[in-house]
């Protein structure tokens, strides 16, 4: 209440001696802001198995490290005496925090208010998220649940944005070009939040609570007559397969854990190097099983992830994009404590052949490593681009050539281990400029695998033979037997031909040797970002 008193029957407003009233209201507004959309809205959120944005931020960050920005942003309703009747906070929560002791910026829509559809101040805070990350040079984490604009619009009529307003996505791009950006879809994410979800170096969606949609079921049915649930349109099964998001998690907690893990390999920004940690895994560890992991039988696939686990620092491999372009394996790991990008083929999927999706995944991956100056370890078992009519329809050569050219432009140090096959144009993507190349005795190279090559190069002989199938097999066996690893070492076309068990020690020594190169790479890349 304002201070009113009466002297000589004349009401006079006494000027308050302190700022207590306003201060009280500041605290009251902050208290109301923490109530978010109210007890019922929070209960509804929990009933759906979802956390509120404030609970998410707390679960993500180190205990007590959240330092909020814009606590007073929102819509206030006052009575005629200027007393606060109602305060509806901006539906975007933003602030600084720490993940494993390292500073970052975190923001996310508040679904309990307007279903996360931006309020005026909420919109401003969300736009500011990237601006802040760019300015402060800190990793950015966005926790998304919300839709884009609504045709109902805001309650209050306001001026539209001026023509000279900066492009809405400019700061989104600047953030991606300068700091690690990790995002999570934790509930339904549509429109603008969906656009920002994928503008990230790493994105994860919670299988149990999240969908990602350009437009939801009602809009889709109205426009196209297609009747689909949110899950059918944009559930984790759809989006981990098509590469929209990198990873799925069982629930929200695991999604946040994945983000923490991702950030552990990342530098704070492009002007700093990724944090090298002490490595308690012996650098000279040599696993016997590596000697036999590649079967001599050429048609027999093997488990590349098992090989990676034996070579990389123990338990450090964090795979990204496992469901998408599955013939290629990409992820982050540590080698001798140094964060590295790891790329390998998975011969269990389409024989490891590079598909359009696989090439897209790999191109993004190489660019991320270049942006954050992470050395790349490449383990090759590449039979070449995927062939066949479906592959041609998917423009595999265009996407594949993009991957090859991206590798050719890469500036970070590469070490490539020729594990088995390295064929065709596609294999060129697996080697960086001036890369360090090691070959296992099982390495095979050439323009195309023996099986395909024989059918083309010897088609006359095969056709004219009494038993064409037998002739083809005979030629294949003869040529396969000629594949020897030694000429590659003799002609110095690889740095070393190695015993597979030596892979870890050799790569650890390489990591030591490249340390002096890394600082000279710091700064933004020439290509900015191509998400």
């Amino acid at each position: 209440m304002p201070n009113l008193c009466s002297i000589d029957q004349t009401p006079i407003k006494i000027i308050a001696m302190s700022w207590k009233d306003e201060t009280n209201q500041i605290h009251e507004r902050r208290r109301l802001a923490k109530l978010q959309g109210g007890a019922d809205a929070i209960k509804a959120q929990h009933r759906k198995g979802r956390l509120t944005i404030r609970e998410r931020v707390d679960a993500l960050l180190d205990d007590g490290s959240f330092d909020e920005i814009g606590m007073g942003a929102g819509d206030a309703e006052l009575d005629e005496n200027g007393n606060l009747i109602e305060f509806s906070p901006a539906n975007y929560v933003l602030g600084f925090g720490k993940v494993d002791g390292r500073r970052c910026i975190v923001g996310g829509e508040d679904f309990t208010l307007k279903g996360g559809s931006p309020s005026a101040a909420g919109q401003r805070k969300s736009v500011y998220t990237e601006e802040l990350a760019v300015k402060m040079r800190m990793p950015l984490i966005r926790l998304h649940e919300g839709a884009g604009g609504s045709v109902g619009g805001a309650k209050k009529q306001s001026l539209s944005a001026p023509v000279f307003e900066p492009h809405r996505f400019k700061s989104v791009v600047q953030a991606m070009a300068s700091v690690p950006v990790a995002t999570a879809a934790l509930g339904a994410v549509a429109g603008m939040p969906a656009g920002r979800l994928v503008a990230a170096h790493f994105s994860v969606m919670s299988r149990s609570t999240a969908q990602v949609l350009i437009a939801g079921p009602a809009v889709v049915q109205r426009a196209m007559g297609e009747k689909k649930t949110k899950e059918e349109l944009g559930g984790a099964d759809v989006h981990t397969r098509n590469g929209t998001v990198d990873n799925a998690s069982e629930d929200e907690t695991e999604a946040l854990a994945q983000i923490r893990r991702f950030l552990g390999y990342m530098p704070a920004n492009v002007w700093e190097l990724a944090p090298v940690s002490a490595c308690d895994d012996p650098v000279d560890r040599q696993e016997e099983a590596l000697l036999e992991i590649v079967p001599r039988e050429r048609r027999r696939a093997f488990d590349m992830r098992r090989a990676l686990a034996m070579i990389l620092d123990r338990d450090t491999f964090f795979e990204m994009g496992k469901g998408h372009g599955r013939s290629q394996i990409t992820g982050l790991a540590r080698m001798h404590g140094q964060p590295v990008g790891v790329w390998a083929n998975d011969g269990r999927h389409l024989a490891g052949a590079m598909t359009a999706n696989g090439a897209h995944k790999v191109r993004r991956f190489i660019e991320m490593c270049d942006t954050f100056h992470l050395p790349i370890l490449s383990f090759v078992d590449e039979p070449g681009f995927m062939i066949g009519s479906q592959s041609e329809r998917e423009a595999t050569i265009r996407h594949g050539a993009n991957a090859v050219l991206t590798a050719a432009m890469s500036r970070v140090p590469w070490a490539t281990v020729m594990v088995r096959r390295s064929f065709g144009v596609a294999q060129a993507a697996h080697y960086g400029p001036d890369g360090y190349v090691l070959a296992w005795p099982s390495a095979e190279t050439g323009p195309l695998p023996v099986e395909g090559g024989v059918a083309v190069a010897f088609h006359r002989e095969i056709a004219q033979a009494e038993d064409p199938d037998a002739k083809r097999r005979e030629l294949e066996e003869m040529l396969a037997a000629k594949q020897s690893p030694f000429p590659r070492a003799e002609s110095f076309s690889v740095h070393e031909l190695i015993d597979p068990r030596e892979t870890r020690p050799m790569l650890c020594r390489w990591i030591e040797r490249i340390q002096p190169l890394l600082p000279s790479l710091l700064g933004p890349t020439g290509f900015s970002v191509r998400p």
Partner: protein
Amino acid sequence: MATQIKLETGGSMWKMLVRQGDDVTAGQELFIMEVMKMEVPYEAPADGKIVAVHIAEGDVVEEGQLALEID
């Protein structure tokens, strides 16, 4: 609770190496698929007994299909 072995890719079932009732040890090959002319072996994730076999040699199979159950 039985462990379900599901197929990571489509392809054809080439060789079944175990039968219902067999005891298997972790890492033992259970069956071999043929995918893009490559033989893709599947191994037992842990020790156990094969309690159900859902695919047979020659089957054309799809990704995600349930192949075996181990208890």
